């Protein structure tokens, strides 16, 4: 059984941890799930160290030492459907209901749960942008403009390939797209405050949850993960500000209007 490494229980636990981290689970959940699965299959020595962008783990299974290091891109897409699936699977493994082979098959199924259809994402982003524009004190017209900007933003995000373009370029470009769209709508006459339109539509990109998660990591004692996340949040936030700022600055100098904030 040990010669087939991909069928080993330790390999299963690594794969589950990797899938969790890739789809945006918290650090301690990844660690806990991996350890729980390893314990359920009686792996003798199991040590794992999880960072927000990497897993280091090694195990001794049937007298053979297995070393694994996995690396990831930080800030990958959050997919709660997959996290729920893996969570359910790990519960059943702990209850002793699933064999290793079955678990591999189940995991494969879970990891291939598709992403939501792009059109639904577009609409969700549009509705979310409109709602936040209203919550931040915008009028109904601002919300209508933010609806269109949010739709354009998600269409743009779907169109670019996140594996080839750098994350910072993506944030810079997409926030500029939002700002251009908002400025155009504002010039045409839709919306009362350019600021409220932009803040509503930009909320999809802004790393508010990442900043909060980073502070939570600090409180949990995961200083390294917290640092990685907080630097990430500030860089992304800066990119968005520059993307929007450049467009708004150009707009102001072209029209000679007063600053908007």
């Amino acid at each position, binding site marked *: 059984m040990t010669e087939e490494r991909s069928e080993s229980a330790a390999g299963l636990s690594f794969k589950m941890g990797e899938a969790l981290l890739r789809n945006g689970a918290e650090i301690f959940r990844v660690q806990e799930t991996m350890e729980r699965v390893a314990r359920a299959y009686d792996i003798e020595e199991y040590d794992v160290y999880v960072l927000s962008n990497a897993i280091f783990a090694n195990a001794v299974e049937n007298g053979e030492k297995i070393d694994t290091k996995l690396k990831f891109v930080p800030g990958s897409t*959050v997919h709660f459907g997959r996290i729920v699936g893996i969570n359910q699977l790990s519960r059943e493994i702990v209850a002793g209901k699933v064999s290793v082979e079955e678990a591999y098959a189940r995991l494969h199924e879970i990891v291939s749960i598709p992403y939501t259809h792009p059109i639904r994402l577009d609409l969700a982003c549009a509705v979310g942008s409109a709602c936040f524009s209203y919550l931040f004190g915008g009028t109904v017209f601002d919300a209508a403009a933010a609806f269109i900007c949010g739709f354009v933003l998600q269409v743009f995000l779907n169109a670019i390939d996140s594996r080839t373009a750098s994350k910072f370029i993506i944030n810079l470009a997409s926030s500029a797209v939002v700002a251009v769209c908002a400025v155009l709508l504002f010039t045409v006459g839709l919306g009362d405050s350019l600021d409220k339109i932009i803040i509503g539509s930009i909320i999809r990109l802004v790393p508010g949850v990442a900043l909060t998660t980073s502070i939570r990591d600090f409180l949990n004692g995961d200083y390294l993960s917290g640092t990685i996340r907080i630097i990430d949040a500030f860089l992304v936030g800066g990119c*968005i500000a520059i993307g929007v700022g450049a467009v708004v600055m150009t707009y102001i100098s072209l029209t000679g209007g007063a600053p908007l904030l």
Partner: protein
Amino acid sequence: MTPEVVFDWAIQTAVAFVATIAFAIIFHTPREQYVCAGLVGAFSWLIYIIYVYFTGDVVFASFFAALGLTYLARVFSFARKAPLPVFLIAGIFPVVPGAGIYYTGYHIFMNNNVEAMSKGVETIKIAIAIALGIGIVVSLPRFFFTLRRKGSTT
């Protein structure tokens, strides 16, 4: 507290409900959890605006909103047997200081250093307040959340 204010609260809560569901869809949440995630988001926003209305302090408003929303998220998490972040991350979206980060960067870029500083400090304070609020509720023992479901196992 006039009827108009209460009416405004109701509307804002409804909008926050819809907004949270929209972001739950973007995070690929399973469909059967949409309503619960939305309720968590609406609840957090309601606490936030009521606290801001009476005291005007956004940092403590965020702290109490985080306490309330994490409590509700944990109740849902046990009741619906789904991991906590499904409800927590979507529900936290309305109060999280995303706008603060953006305004800080924007003011730095536009050379308004004083405003950039005050926005930046406020953003960090809100993030710490929310993280503390979540941390407190997450570390409570589980019987606080499963009182009416005695004997049920998760």
